[in-house]
């Protein structure tokens, strides 16, 4: 068994390297967003994570197979299966699947299809966020704050939201946050 090589440098940490490499491949195949905790972390939140969450457009089996093969070619693997058809069945049932670098269980990219109008809205309003220094599409800061305060609500998520509110206080749109919280109540909490 070979000793695995640690990547990541002082210029770019391993999570950012993993995320950027993965998203560059996905970008060639479909629209995506990185959601949940990684925006807070990429914006300096003093915590780490084992997984990054991604939502992509719903794809046909053929298009997903092409994406899967591109990921494999670039050194990623799927924890659930190496059969694109089997992985697609998970996604099609609105479950998530996890990709990692080959031979390394962490970090993970947890990938799922857009499942409702709220996910579609997040994809439609996606942003690149220069402060992160990453060429990655994120769900907007407003969406991140709204989800963490209205839906996720764990201590970790509320601390993430507080961090985001402080870092992006000059650009937050409270009206948009209220609107997204209302959508969360309709699509996720009712």
């Amino acid at each position: 068994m070979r000793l695995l090589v640690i990547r990541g440098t002082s210029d770019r940490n391993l999570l950012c390297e993993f995320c950027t490499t993965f998203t560059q491949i996905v970008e060639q195949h479909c629209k995506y967003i990185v959601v949940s905790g990684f925006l807070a972390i990429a914006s300096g939140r003093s915590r780490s994570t084992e997984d990054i969450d991604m939502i992509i457009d719903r794809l046909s089996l053929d298009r997903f197979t092409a994406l899967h093969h591109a990921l494999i070619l670039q050194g990623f693997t799927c924890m659930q299966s190496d059969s694109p058809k089997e992985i697609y069945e998970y996604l099609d049932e609105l479950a998530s699947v996890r990709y990692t670098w080959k031979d390394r269980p962490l970090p993970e990219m947890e990938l799922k299809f857009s499942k409702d109008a709220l996910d579609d809205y997040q994809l439609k309003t996606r942003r690149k966020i220069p402060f992160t220094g990453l060429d990655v599409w994120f769900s907007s800061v407003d969406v991140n704050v709204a989800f963490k305060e209205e839906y996720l609500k764990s201590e970790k998520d509320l601390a993430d939201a507080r961090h985001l509110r402080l870092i992006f206080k000059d650009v937050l749109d409270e009206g948009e946050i209220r609107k997204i919280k209302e959508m969360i109540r309709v699509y996720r909490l009712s």
Partner: protein
Amino acid sequence: MKQPDDQIARWAEYVRTNPDWRKFHNDFINAQFQMHEQFLQRLLKTPGGREKIIELYGIKNLKGYEGLLGPAPAMRS
């Protein structure tokens, strides 16, 4: 454990005003994964370590992790 609000605010202010935050932050995150790799190597050397890793991460696609776990037992000579 809950992180105090003033601690979050102090660090956020540092991040907003000091571009060198990235170095500390990157070192912190890279260290986590370095420790994780060391943990995996130690676990692999223990009895049943391979199976524990498979269970811990819910790995179903063993082929994708052969470099870490070695070939599946049935395939070993």
